[in-house]
């Protein structure tokens, strides 16, 4: 069963707030000069920021469930411009699970391109 896709916008200010809240102060997420110095196209969102958005969508879709496993590969960076923001779309497909577990196969895209590799959450009723 397909779940209603959720769209989120990431701004540079969000990344600064996330760096403080998460303790991940890698400057590639906040400083354009450092990001380009290591060969990145610009400031990129923390991979964990994008995965947190995926987890938000899952929590919205399944408010009565708790997460058993959650994971992904970070396959493509989300470049966040200095002005405006970067849009990320989280889509999900609910699969039948075993032992009362629900598996949610996620698709997370930015500008039509997948940015997470095989993102998936397994849930159980809380």
């Amino acid at each position, binding site marked *: 069963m397909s779940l209603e896709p959720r769209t*989120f916008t990431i701004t540079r200010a969000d990344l600064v707030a996330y760096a403080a809240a998460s303790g991940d102060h*890698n*400057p590639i997420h906040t400083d354009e000069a450092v990001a380009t110095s290591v060969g990145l196209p610009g400031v990129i969102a923390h991979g964990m920021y994008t995965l*947190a958005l995926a987890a938000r969508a*899952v929590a919205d879709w399944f408010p009565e469930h708790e997460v058993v496993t959650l994971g992904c590969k970070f396959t493509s960076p989300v470049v966040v411009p200095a002005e405006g923001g970067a849009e990320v779309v989280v889509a999900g497909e609910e699969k039948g699970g075993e032992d009362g577990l629900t598996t949610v196969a996620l698709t997370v895209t930015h500008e039509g391109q997948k940015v997470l*590799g095989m993102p998936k959450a397994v849930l159980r009723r809380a």
Partner: protein
Amino acid sequence: MPVDPSIVGRSFPPTRPYPVTAEALRAFAAATGGAWTGGPAPATFPIVTAFEAMNAFLEAEQVALHRIVHGEQRFAYERPVVEGDELTATLTVTSLRQIGGNDIIGTTSEVTDATGALVCTTGATLVHRADGSEA
């Protein structure tokens, strides 16, 4: 400089206990555009303590954080994190490969509560970009 292969299998000292306050939960949720109003922490919240363990490991190995790109992250939860938890992460280096001058470092961190009970296990793959990878 490549990471020393002899680190595979090494565990690093546990991080200092991290108190999970309502303020920390609210700040984490707000930073990702959401709101925490009680109940379980956002699912990715244990990254806060896992990241501290990773930072200590990178410092010990003299790896500059800005040369690290996150390759993969997986969480397996025993229970959700809740306000009042005191979390500690213990990181073990599980694998190391060198591809195209980059180090691909596999780590696993066990996140435990104040009683020592396991809250979640989280695996991370870190890509250490070599000096020559500049554009």
